[in-house]
């Protein structure tokens, strides 16, 4: 049903070249409302470049990039350094690109667990705190498209689990599409609808299961990555549970795994919706 909606953003055979070298080329993707698309791939494979094309920060040198007109974007870039000479509190930073209401700012900060940092200076934050603030800032905009480039780098492990869960909830709450870049293969595979595996071009593309079992994926990430498929199945079940706390036990997969429930990646959205009903 969602599939028939118009894409929020669409790349068609898009590529960027710099100094005669293609950073990435031939990327086609489309993200619709309520959908999470994850880009995976080794360093220098063009993940961030692809995200920046989708955002319109970079114009493709070949192919096309198209965004829905009037789309509100929330962006968490991979590397942000705030000049320490800037007088900037977290609260002001939250309103960087738009005048967001107090209630929305507070709600977003609450959700990423940084409410108590509101009056702190941005430059005094730790790496993990800063990433949480960045995520809160992007969420507070109530974006139609959320682009998260390694959003949880430096966040502690239990925090990552909670925040990835938050991200997968957001697509239903905000009805937004999400473009996610992450190295945490097994976490990522859990909540995503489509995966694109990049290595200068699109290596493989499809559902997490399809990608994880493809030979290109094995070749790129090695056989050690293959067990993430198994982990993924468990993770996936957990995502659909009404209770976020189950995730905590997750690093070592525990009781909450019922093999009979698994293999239903297509139901991602329904499952997550149920979650709301209960919450």
């Amino acid at each position: 049903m969602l599939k028939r909606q118009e894409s929020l953003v669409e790349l068609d055979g898009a590529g960027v070249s710099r100094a005669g070298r293609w950073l990435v080329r031939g990327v086609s993707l489309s993200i619709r409302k309520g959908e999470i698309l994850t880009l995976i791939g080794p360093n220098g494979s063009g993940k961030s470049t692809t995200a920046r094309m989708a955002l319109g920060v970079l114009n493709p040198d070949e192919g096309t990039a198209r965004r829905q007109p009037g789309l509100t974007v929330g962006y968490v870039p991979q590397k942000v350094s705030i000049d320490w000479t800037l007088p900037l509190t977290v609260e002001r930073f939250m309103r960087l690109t738009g005048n967001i209401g107090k209630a929305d700012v507070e709600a977003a900060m609450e959700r990423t667990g940084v409410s108590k940092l509101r009056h702190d200076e941005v430059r005094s934050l730790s790496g993990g705190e800063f990433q949480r603030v960045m995520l809160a800032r992007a969420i507070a905009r109530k974006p139609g498209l959320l682009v998260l480039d390694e959003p949880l780098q430096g966040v502690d492990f239990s925090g990552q689990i909670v925040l990835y869960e938050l991200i997968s909830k957001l697509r239903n709450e905000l009805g937004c599409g999400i473009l996610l870049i992450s190295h945490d293969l097994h976490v990522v595979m859990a909540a995503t609808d489509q995966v694109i595996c990049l290595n200068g071009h699109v290596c493989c593309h499809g559902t997490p299961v399809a990608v994880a079992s493809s030979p290109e994926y094995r070749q790129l990430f090695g056989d050690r990555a293959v067990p993430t498929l198994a982990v993924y199945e468990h993770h996936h079940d957990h995502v659909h549970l009404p209770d976020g706390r189950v995730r905590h036990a997750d690093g070592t997969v525990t009781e909450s795994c019922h093999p009979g429930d698994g293999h239903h990646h297509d139901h991602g959205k329904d499952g997550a919706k149920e979650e709301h009903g209960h919450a």
Partner: protein
Amino acid sequence: MLDDFFVRALLAGVGVAVVAGPLGCFIVWRRLAYFGDTLSHAALLGVAMALLMEVNITLAVFAVAALVSLLLLALQRRAGLSSDALLGLLAHSSIAIGLVALSFMTWVRVDLMSFLFGDILAVSRSDIAVIYGGGIAVLAVLAWIWRPLFAATVNREIAEAEGQNPRQMDVVFMLLMATVIAIALKIVGVLLITAMLIIPAATARRLVSGPEQMAVVAGIAAVASVVGGLFGSLQWDTPSGPTIVVAAVCLFVASLLVPATFASGRQQGGK
């Protein structure tokens, strides 16, 4: 009241200070101090052009400063040279061309010192009108583009991704700077304009925790420098432009003595 040269000087100085403070904040945040220098050096070329073509000096200075900033943007995009090399090139070539052009104009008797260090005590009523007209225009535009300009200053990429236009902001900001330099020329002179932009902003930095606050405090510090400097120059019979800058420096030093209320995590160098 306007008949008194000192009152005119005060009015003109305050008019420039109110604009220089907030705009100077962006120069500090964007690390454009040297760019400010370049534009003010270009102002001397503007003066030469004005005398040569017998047009209004303020207008000519604005035109040359704007031209130099656009030239800089164009050269930056073509890359090849680093920004500071380009700035040095533009600054010194424009001041040199300006001086050479002035020396050719043997029929013009120019008091070069008044352009280098300002001549605030010779401000006329029409100068005041130009300062307030230009100043209000600059403040209005600055207020209008404040949020996108600040967002682009904090992080270009986020600003652009989230629907703003940092490049456009760059151009508008450079035009604002050109305007301020044109109207400040008479007050502190080519060599000290950048000081009026940067020192009050630097003074404000330690006292505030938000960008809007910093703009206001910088404006107040700039006004205080002008008033203090003018009275100081009257008292000790010192050149007024440099005295204003000395007053600004004194305020900056004083700000260092203020106990840092928010200085936690501020150990110099930051991250």
